[in-house]
């Protein structure tokens, strides 16, 4: 299991060995602790639970502290589970750092996107809107027709339309690790990563490699 929890720091760029510019997103990842291992026999599924970001003990409830105390771990803000089949590589109480990955690795990154509020069809689904000219008024960003007439006489379920956009869990697949700074616990990922700066992200080994 290769996985880490981290916080998005922001985007910048670095130079590769040929001098070309590589746009990267910095993630402050780890150190993470293995707080629990869920096995198929006892829990019905196989997963590794990781904890990230040390905080003051009084920020957690007694139950949360007790959960971490079993392996003498510090109080941690975030706990997340990574479903995996390979449980042998880690054991409870382990400390994981960015050294888990090497430059060139492919990873999947899961984050919560920035909330956009109630958005129209043009922004949310890329609808084209209406024409600007030829006698039109108030049609520029209109979604157009939702469906047909008396048959079926209703809007089909699942039709795209305006609504709440963003603040959703999104996975960006097959991103490349471009930089690792073990001293500062930094991962540099080529390209963009879902979520705002300071948002929690899960970094996983790429599933489709």
């Amino acid at each position, binding site marked *: 299991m290769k996985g880490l929890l981290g916080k998005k720091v*922001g985007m910048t760029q670095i130079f590769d060995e040929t001098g070309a510019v590589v746009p990267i997103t910095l993630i402050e990842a780890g150190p993470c602790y293995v707080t629990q291992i869920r096995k198929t026999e006892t829990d019905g599924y196989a997963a590794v639970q990781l904890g990230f970001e040390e905080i003051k003990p009084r920020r957690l409830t007694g139950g949360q502290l007790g959960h971490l105390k079993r392996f003498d771990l510090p109080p941690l803000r975030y706990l997340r589970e990574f479903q995996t089949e390979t449980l042998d590589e880690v054991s409870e109480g382990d400390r994981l750092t960015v050294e888990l990955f090497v430059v060139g690795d492919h990873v999947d990154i899961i984050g919560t996107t920035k909330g956009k509020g109630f958005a129209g069809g043009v922004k949310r689904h890329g609808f084209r809107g209406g024409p600007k000219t030829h006698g039109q008024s108030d049609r520029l960003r209109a979604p157009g027709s939702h469906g047909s007439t008396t048959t079926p006489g209703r809007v089909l379920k699942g039709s795209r339309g305006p609504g709440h956009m963003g603040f959703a869990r999104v996975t960006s697949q097959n991103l490349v690790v471009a930089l690792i700074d073990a001293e500062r616990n*930094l991962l540099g990922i080529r390209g963009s990563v879902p979520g705002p700066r300071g948002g929690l992200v899960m970094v996983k080994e790429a599933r489709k490699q």
Partner: protein
Amino acid sequence: MSDHIKAIEVPVNPQIPELHPGDTVSVHVRIKEGDRERVQEFRGTIIRMRKGGNNANFTVRRIASHGIGVERTFLLRSPRVEKVVVQRGAHVRRAQLYFLRDRTGRRARLKEKRRS
């Protein structure tokens, strides 16, 4: 800017002196042609400097043959910029010398300023 982003900034090449708008410079750039690498020189006037960590850059304007203006932007921290030589400083009163684009010949000259 976050400390972490600052931390991975590449240091500026020591072969690049402090640059100012109006300076006449010659920029030595490494260029790859097939499997051969050579250094190309680009000589002109700096018309703007932009900050921004690893993205810090400056634009050099020169007049090529037939009076055609050529502008090229270089990344200050790029390893492809081998060195920069300042040949002449100039007294300028603004940070962006875009007015030079509308001028040609003698009117495009800048008054020299010598820096210690």
